[in-house]
């Protein structure tokens, strides 16, 4: 097991190394250099360009730049944001909690509701309910998250006035409001973004769980369990579902990029102060150090969650680590 673990850890580190090299190459492969876009809004003098190029280290050879970039990365220094003029790391850290709250809620929703619906579908394979659930989840999957967000913000937030359509806190909330009132306020703001993000991404969880469950339901031990006269509920949840849950663990690593990409749009639409809206804003201001930092953070998250998913899988299913 420890040999396997070590191999897998080295592999994860290599994957991240390649990802960050790719990101660096992509940015440097751009025609012109990253600062060329800055002059579009306001003409820059040659002198200004010189100073800016020196400030961002763009006047040095590419290999040296890559060295500086790696060195900064080790020290936790991802450079300075062009728009905010502050360290990228600080900006990312500031915006992380809101995204974790939104992402965590969607995670719970998708893996709670999605797995349950997926199992129901597998059990009722081919029946009307299965077909309807497939159609509904596919419809959600086909929706652009930003469009669904706008429609819900208009319908629920503006027309019906049921829930706040933007932000994370009510700016009019008095400063001496209790912790409970504040939490309730954040929760009310959370509903629409979380719902939007969940609708557009729950299909993957349902589909995966349905397939995994169908695989298991075919196995002879399920027939045995039924032949023993066990109740349906017992067979489905205790016998079948436990084994159909393993493949779902690997889904987590696949699903994370979908969630992160979706949150860029949803956070932008609902002005949710997280990493997604930070990235969406950075696009408009051509803030490449910030985009680079956000991409690196996401890549790290994807690699680490893939690694953890593999470990969890191996712990639960010995066949994986013995193979």
């Amino acid at each position, binding site marked *: 097991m420890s040999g396997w673990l070590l191999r897998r850890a080295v592999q994860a580190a290599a994957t991240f190394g390649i990802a960050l090299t790719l990101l660096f190459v992509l940015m440097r492969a751009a025609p012109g250099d990253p600062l060329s876009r800055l002059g579009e809004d306001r003409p820059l003098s040659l002198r200004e360009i010189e100073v800016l190029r020196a400030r961002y280290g763009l006047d040095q050879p590419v290999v040296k730049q890559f060295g500086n970039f790696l060195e900064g990365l080790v020290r936790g220094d991802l450079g300075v944001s062009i728009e905010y003029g502050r360290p990228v790391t600080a900006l990312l850290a500031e915006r992380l909690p809101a995204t974790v709250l939104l992402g965590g809620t969607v995670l719970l929703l998708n893996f709670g509701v999605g797995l349950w619906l997926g199992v129901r579908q597998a059990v009722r394979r081919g029946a009307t309910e299965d077909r309807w659930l497939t159609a509904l989840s596919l419809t959600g999957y086909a929706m652009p998250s930003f469009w669904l967000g*706008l*429609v819900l913000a208009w319908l629920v937030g503006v027309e019906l006035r049921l829930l706040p359509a933007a932000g994370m806190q009510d700016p009019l909330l008095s400063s001496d409001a209790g912790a409970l009132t504040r939490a309730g306020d954040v929760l009310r703001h959370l509903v629409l973004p979380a719902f939007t993000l969940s609708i557009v991404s729950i299909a993957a969880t349902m589909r995966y769980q349905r397939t995994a469950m169908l695989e298991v339901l075919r196995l002879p031990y399920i027939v045995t369990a039924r032949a023993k006269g066990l109740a349906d509920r017992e067979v489905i949840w205790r016998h079948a579902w436990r084994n159909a849950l393993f493949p779902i663990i690997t889904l987590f690593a696949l699903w994370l990029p979908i969630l992160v990409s979706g949150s860029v749009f949803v956070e932008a639409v609902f002005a949710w102060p997280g990493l997604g809206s930070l990235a969406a804003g950075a696009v408009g201001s051509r803030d490449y150090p910030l985009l680079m930092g956000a991409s690196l953070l996401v890549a790290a998250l994807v690699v680490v969650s893939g690694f953890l998913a593999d470990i969890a899988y191996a712990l639960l299913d010995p066949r994986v680590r013995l193979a």
Partner: protein
Amino acid sequence: MNLALETLRTAWRDPRGRLGGMVLLVVTVAAIVGPWLLPDPRAQPDILGGSLPPAIAHPFGTDQLSRNVLSRVVAGARISLSVALLAVALSVSLGAAVGLVSGYWGGTVDAALMRVVDGALAIPRLFILLLVLAVWERVTILALILLIGATGWFATSRLVRAEVLRIREEGYVWAAVALGAKRRRIIFWHLLPNALGPLLVAATLGVGDVILLEAGLSFLGLGIQPPTPSWGGMILDSKEVLVSAPWVGLFPGLAIVVTVFSVNLFGDALRDAVDPRSA
């Protein structure tokens, strides 16, 4: 090739495949023929009159510049579908090429290629595109297609590689090798045709993904640039009249939902035709 045709036929027999296929046909025909039958999507007959709700003269209403929303949705279909089809053709070809090389040659080549694919898969496609599009100079539609295509082949190469690894151990491939078949014959006569089924599924589902991706990029102002109408760009423009004229953004969004839904429905039927166990 016969196998691919057979797969398409099986998918067409599936009611989902037929429904998805027919809707796609309608959308495609509308995208090709529509612009000749409908008013000019760029015309601004009454720019001071503001946005009008749906009526017989303009079934989807008009936008804040008094442009016909239906015309623009249909014109947008042309753009979105072309971008998606071309980008997916590129990414599927790249994925097939890398997957074939990786799976057939194996060894160091395979290891190196798959490490790069692992690394690339760790960065969500959207973030790669955001970074590139934000830094690069003005991006033309052709460049956009190339960029979307060039960032979409990683998962496909994995898929094709896995298929090749499976197929090359089949009896008929051994037999071909024993008969002295050349490498080229084995790759293009045995490996590629037998991997076409899963590749077709990946391509179909890829079209749906790219339509959403392009709409998202255009919504962020990075994809198709105005005045060229695109579904994502129309939704972006509709934000300013969200409350006073909700139809401006509603219809381009519905166009995306209907198209992507049909593509995925057809893809599902194809998937079940390729691998009946997943049904």
